[in-house]
């Protein structure tokens, strides 16, 4: 636990040691608020639907930006050798990094609480869909993060890690959408659309919390974190 804490702290505060974190937060908060308030007063509805609607797309770019450095930087600078010759378990490092990235993403969501606050001031919103929406955002964000972090381990170039992260999460995101399912043979459509990151999010966003959706996101995180651990272990004993 102490080792996990050490990794978590190093990674989390590591974000704030570089100017990229501040640029990231500034752009994220600016963009989400702008996109939301652009139409908020026109719609005349006290709901956060449009906010939750744009997040899956924004996350396609913002989450890989959070995860790209996690392994690529260690590999590029060679610190990965220092790290894994310390007495740490791989799972402690992987979870420490993952939860630090998760915490950083939470900070950016926390800093955009301006959205629900102004919704509450402007009208009398239904809180069910808003809480459901946040749950969905955290779950989806976690799945994106696990994918992005796994991809970061495939290269020592952060830019490549970012682009690969965008491409792969985008791939998972559109898997369930009609564009993809339309061209597939009927019998595999349910399986493929179950794998899509987007579908599950939409149902949670409507305030319908289904254990299958939650299980889906948790298993996506589990699979990619496992792959991450596995690929590091595999590198070591190659």
């Amino acid at each position, binding site marked *: 636990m102490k080792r996990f804490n*050490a990794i978590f*702290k190093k990674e989390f505060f590591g974000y704030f040691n*570089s100017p990229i974190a501040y640029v990231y937060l500034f752009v994220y908060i600016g963009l989400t608020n702008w996109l939301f308030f652009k139409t908020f007063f026109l719609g005349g509805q006290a709901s956060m639907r449009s906010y939750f609607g744009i997040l899956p797309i924004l996350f396609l770019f913002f989450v890989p930006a959070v995860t790209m450095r996690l392994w690529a930087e260690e590999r590029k*600078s*060679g610190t990965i050798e220092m790290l894994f010759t310390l*007495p*740490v378990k791989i799972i402690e490092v992987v979870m420490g990094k993952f939860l630090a990235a998760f915490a950083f993403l939470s900070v950016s969501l926390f800093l955009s609480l301006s959205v629900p606050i102004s919704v509450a001031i402007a009208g009398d919103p239904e809180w069910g869909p808003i809480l459901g929406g946040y749950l969905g955002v955290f779950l989806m964000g976690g799945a994106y993060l696990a994918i992005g972090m796994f991809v970061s381990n495939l290269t020592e170039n952060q830019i490549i890690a970012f682009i690969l992260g965008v491409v792969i999460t985008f791939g998972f995101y559109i898997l369930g959408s009609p564009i993809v399912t339309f061209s597939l043979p009927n019998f595999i459509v349910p399986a493929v659309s179950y794998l899509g990151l987007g579908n599950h999010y939409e149902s949670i966003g409507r305030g319908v919390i289904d254990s299958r959706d939650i299980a889906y996101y948790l298993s996506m995180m589990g699979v990619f974190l496992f792959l991450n651990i596995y690929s590091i272990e595999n590198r*070591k*004993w190659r």
Partner: protein
Amino acid sequence: MINVQNLKKTYGSFTAVDDISFEVKKGEIVGFLGPNGAGKTTTMKILTCFMGATGGSASIAGFDVEKNSFEVRSKVGYLPESAPLYSEMNVIGFLKFIAEIRNIQGDKFNTRLEEVSAVCGLKSVMNRPIAQLSKGYRQRVGLAQAIFHNPDVLILDEPTSGLDPNQIIEIRELIRKLGQEKTVILSTHILPEVEAVCSRVIIINEGRIVGAGTLEQLSANSHETVVAKIRGNEGAIREKLKAMPGVKEVLLRGAANELSTYEIQPDSGQKLNEAVFKVVADNGWSLAELRSEGASLENVFTKLTRSAQ
């Protein structure tokens, strides 16, 4: 303390480490010597559990590097080549991170920090970001990190590479000090380094051990040559010198006017200086200079690593 048996590491068809076996006893400072790309770093990466071996086995303090990797990593302090550090952290933050991972906290951390920063000379840079440090200081932070938990075994990969002469002397002094109570393996391709620091040498070339022993043992295999500057007829001198018992070869190094420099190589370990002088005196030549060229580690190294090619 360190036991390596038939260690082998291949990358595809390339063999980086080829059937290496050696042993390091407690309290020794062993120099791992070889040209670049000889397999020194690979061996060290296997010993510190960063890489797996393709064949053979290695153990440190009785723990197998593969099966008991966690214990090995707890016992060993390792400075990787060119000291990779988290450059966005400051020195104290970095050492705190290392200490936390190694479970050194509270008062113990404070005393260790005091000791280590004094030994490594880091007090003046404690709050500086690592990114701003000079190569010499980075190397010292790397060493501080390696010795923080007071390990019994230290593995240092080219600890002085890229440093200026003063820094090299400081780091060597430090390693020698540490070596009084620890087992140390350090790799280098700088020969004087080994002569200055190590009690024993393992020479490695193209993945194989080509020589091992103390400095005296290694030098004993290579014979002293005699260099003489003699005035007189060149042909006659060479002939007479060559005729001496125990002489393998006489080479002409250079000539100016009537004064020529000869290199006389013995065919065994015997000393030829006196015999050469006698020959010169008997023939009535004049001797301008007579000296022996020691069998330096450099000669041994060149001989061993060249002949293997």
